[in-house]
């Protein structure tokens, strides 16, 4: 109350209120706020994105269903019941039954387990291999580059089916074999792409600066180049997960699927595709679940790309843009209302 009464002089600051800082007590090295590390920043930005949260939740629900639905189901995924074949969805069989009378609800979620595992690991594994090999090729250049690129040239030209069949023959048809097959099939694309990116950044000023300062190549790649292209990598990685899921499905389509009686969403969808005009649900449900998984991954990838980008700080990210635009509109409205 008293303050209000005080006269305002010299631009609004009352010299009486100002006191010199006692420098002797001040620890200038003290960190007032915790420094926001790169990953903490990413997490903070990601948390603010509603779409990202939604997709993450969706994915979580799907994963939980894949884990728990078969456990709590009264049916086994491979339990046939010849008298109830091709039943439409009902209270008893939520997703209906297939032609051997097996409960589709159980089968879909068992299949989702396999597809998720194959999708995750089958996408990340080849990607990591590709990134590692690609960055070696791109950074060191010379004969190493030459050698690696020729190996990739040769590898890409030999139909992947040949080594997929070989791997499946020697490792059996389990999920591990499929994942290894995917890794062998897919590491070459990312390696090539990543090499191109490294080449692009190799001659940039900050890289040269780091090199001059004596940073090791791995450090430069990891600390300086990686953050710059992480956005791109995450986007391709999130498109690799669905790609891996579908690659598994297309292998199932040509008869190189997972060993029976195990199944996967891809297998179920391609089985159902043959009868989408008679028993639509057998085709639609697995397809829908696959599509949901892919949708969630895809959107999450987009959001993460925004969050990960070190140069696209808060004010630039898509969600921030949206927020700001909303605020502007709100202000406009308020102004309009005031007038």
């Amino acid at each position, binding site marked *: 109350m008293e303050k209000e009464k005080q006269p305002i002089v010299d631009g609004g600051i009352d010299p009486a209120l100002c006191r010199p800082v006692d420098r002797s007590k001040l620890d200038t090295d003290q960190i007032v706020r915790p420094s926001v590390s790169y990953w903490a920043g990413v997490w903070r930005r990601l948390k603010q994105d509603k779409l990202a949260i939604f997709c993450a939740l969706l994915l979580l629900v799907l994963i939980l269903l894949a884990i728990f639905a078969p456990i709590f189901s009264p049916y086994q995924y491979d339990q046939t019941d010849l008298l109830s074949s091709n039943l439409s969805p009902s209270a008893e069989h939520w997703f209906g039954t297939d032609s051997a009378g097996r409960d589709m609800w159980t089968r879909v979620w068992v299949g989702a387990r396999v597809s998720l595992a194959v999708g995750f690991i089958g996408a990340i594994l080849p990607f990591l291999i590709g990134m590692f090999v690609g960055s070696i090729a791109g950074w060191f250049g010379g004969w190493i580059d030459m050698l690696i690129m020729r190996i990739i040239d040769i590898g890409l030209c030999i139909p992947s089916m040949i080594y997929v*069949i*070989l791997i499946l023959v020697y490792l059996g048809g389990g999920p591990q074999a499929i994942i290894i097959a995917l890794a062998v099939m897919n590491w070459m694309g990312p390696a090539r792409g990543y090499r191109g990116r490294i080449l*692009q950044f190799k001659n940039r000023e900050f890289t040269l600066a780091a090199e001059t300062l004596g940073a090791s190549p791995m450090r430069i790649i990891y600390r300086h180049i990686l953050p710059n292209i992480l956005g791109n990598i995450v986007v391709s990685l999130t498109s690799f997960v669905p790609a891996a899921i579908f690659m598994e499905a297309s292998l199932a389509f040509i008869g190189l699927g997972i060993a029976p009686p195990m199944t996967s969403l891809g297998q179920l969808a391609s089985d159902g595709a043959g009868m*989408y005009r008679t028993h639509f649900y057998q085709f639609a449900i697995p397809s829908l679940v696959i599509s*949901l998984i892919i949708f969630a991954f895809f*959107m999450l990838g987009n959001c993460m790309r925004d969050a990960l980008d070190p140069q696209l700080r808060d004010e630039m990210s898509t969600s921030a843009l949206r927020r700001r635009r909303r605020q502007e509109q709100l202000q406009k409205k308020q102004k309009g209302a005031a007038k």
Partner: protein
Amino acid sequence: MVCKELIPLKKYILQRLVISVITLWLIVTVCFFLLRLLPGNPFASTTIMTQETLDRMMAYYGLDQPLWKQYLTYMGNLLQGNFGYSLKYAGRSVNYVIASTFPVSAQLGFQALVFGIPVGLLLGILAAKFRGRAMDAGINVFVIICTAVPTFIIAALLQFVLGLKLGLFPVAQWKSFSYTILPTLCLSLGTISGYARSMRTLMLEVDRQDYLKTAKAKGLGNARIVIFHQIRNAIIPMITNLGTEIAGMLMGSYVIEKIFSIPGMGAYFVDSIQGLDYTMVMGLVIFQAVIVIVANFIVDLLYGIIDPRIRVA
């Protein structure tokens, strides 16, 4: 400027040629021996046959010879440009199969690329320019649908709706241009969504590079910036995989060709590997390899021209 570039270019082309031939030879060799590792007998079919009959057929086709001898024979024929005859389809020469099916697959692939790449790039550019707005969201939804729904489902649905119900296009077969529209559309969806997606990301990445800021600071017009700086720089990283991609598209798609009954090459790849049709697989692999090598070579040349920072070396 022209002279300076041309001399190393000549040397470069020569160098690449030598490397290409060696690569090709390695592919042939690796593939030849990998194929023989696959278990099974190429002549085993569901009709009842005794081992004796199988052995005689193996002998007839020279497959009872030691592997190195078979390899030398094969390489000898290959040097004369002769891919041999199919083991599964007696009388069908691999050369003839390639000559008759490749143009079909290539036409389909080319149409899909010619349609898909510009549309995909355009969508990506639009999405980046109108980031966070309705346009971006709309394009995103389209891209998601293309990515999240498998080709065989989209193809079957398009065929059912546009072909059968509305009667706009023929359902299947390969008889005239109108027959190619549906399969081209289906095949290009993947390209469109892939390019739209990458283009959007890369455009945004380029958006904050210093040279763009410089360009903006210089007061260049918006369209000029977008066209000459942003797009050009965004496209560069995409070119790396273009060679392989073009080759892949030209070689045909198993799913699309099956669904639309198109007499292309895609089906041969899958069927001949599963059926252990050694000569057919080898012929197709070598043909594909040549196309990939040539495409990559052209792409690498383009790479150097478009992005002067990355000189061929």
